[in-house]
């Protein structure tokens, strides 16, 4: 009984069984790095947007410069730059730290931009009304402006966060044992595409729920168009 060539090359059962533990371990690495990136990237972005609301000219320029650079340069360029560049000046970071650092900085830049747009979109009257009730600047920001601003930022922020989190796959290029890395290593070792299929499916398994959640958030927090 001959199995189809397709199954043999892309979904061979005995290889699925052999590599499932490896792929699962790799999924854990991906999830760990992704979670750290989301936490530190969003925190960085929010912090910078808050700093920007004080409107200190020099600091504003620095923040905008950082944001623009990280929005314009491809993440893979940054990953290679940090990974191969830093050891030359005596700084040795493990590859997963490099991946975390670069992706956090990329997400931080994008998140700052979105949070700042959200803060700007809150009308001036809200600021004035809050201040006139006796709230200080920081209180106004925290209790009046931010809650309204963040609502507006949820849909774009979710989409960009998902896209940047998927960039954990770039770790395969510098040897982080995440899903793609483990899958390609296995594929070239055994000369069969089954591990690649498993890797792609692992991503679908991890990210489909997030994509669907993002879609739901998008409609839930949609802009009310006039």
């Amino acid at each position: 009984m001959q199995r189809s060539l397709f199954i043999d090359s892309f979904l061979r059962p005995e290889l699925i069984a052999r590599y499932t533990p490896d792929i699962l371990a790799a999924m854990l690495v991906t999830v760990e790095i992704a979670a750290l990136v989301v936490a530190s990237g969003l925190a960085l972005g929010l912090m910078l947007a808050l700093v920007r609301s004080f409107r200190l000219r020099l600091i504003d320029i620095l923040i905008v410069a950082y944001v623009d650079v990280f929005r314009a340069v491809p993440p893979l360029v940054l990953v290679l730059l940090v990974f191969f560049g830093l050891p030359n000046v005596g700084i040795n970071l493990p590859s997963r730290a490099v991946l975390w650092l670069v992706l956090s900085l990329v997400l931080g830049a994008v998140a700052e931009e979105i949070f700042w747009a959200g803060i700007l979109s809150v009308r001036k009257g809200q600021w004035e009304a809050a201040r006139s009730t006796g709230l200080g600047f920081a209180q106004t920001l925290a209790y009046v402006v931010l809650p309204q601003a963040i609502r507006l930022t949820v849909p774009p922020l979710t989409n960009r966060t998902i896209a940047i989190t998927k960039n954990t796959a770039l770790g395969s290029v510098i040897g982080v044992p995440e899903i793609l890395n483990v899958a390609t290593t296995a594929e070239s070792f055994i000369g069969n595409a089954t591990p690649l299929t498993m890797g792609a499916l692992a991503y679908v398994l991890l990210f489909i729920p997030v994509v669907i959640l993002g879609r739901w958030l998008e409609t839930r927090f949609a802009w009310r168009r006039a």
Partner: protein
Amino acid sequence: MDAVIQQFFNVSIMAAVLPVVLRGLGMTLIVCAVVIPLGLAGGLLVALAMGARSRAVRTVVAALIDFFRAVPPLVLLIFIHAGLPFAGIRPTSFVSVCLAFLLNNSAYYGEIYRAGIESIGRGQWDAARSTGLGTVQAALYVVLPQAVRNVLPDLVSNTVEVVKLTSLASVVALPEMLYSADMARSLTYNASPIVLAALIYLVLLWPVVRLVSRMEHRVAA
């Protein structure tokens, strides 16, 4: 400090590798010239299919969009380039890149067009149809021009992402800018060629990033 300049901003190394990196830039631009129109056209098809009358078509397209939004572009690229040979198809790295980006970008552009089409009121369709325009004509001459205008910042910003994404082609050895710069890096044992590539990306994309950021703020205001 000296070491940092030596390792990252070494002008003589940058000057030496400039021709190679610029040749890579040429390939990057060629890839962009192919994948951006492909993605824009594919996205349009996806968006129109999302508005199809048949429920089955809509469900299949929605599932495909979610699938391609869930799989990282690099995974898709590697799957196509390293996987297809096992099915007896051997795409060149250029073809693999175009195919992977067509699939990935159509999903993203498609979502953007769809949001734009949804932002156009039903009345525009009805009015266009009542003047005697067919469905295709109504879509082409009435709805799409308005829809595209409404989502222009998103379209431009996604195009910036596509240009940045072309750097992934280096992983399948397509000699675009990052690939050339990384080759130069491994020959010179110095990170300056990659800094050079980063600077070229910056010069290329910074004006667009500024533009998008201004368009976005205008929409938000």
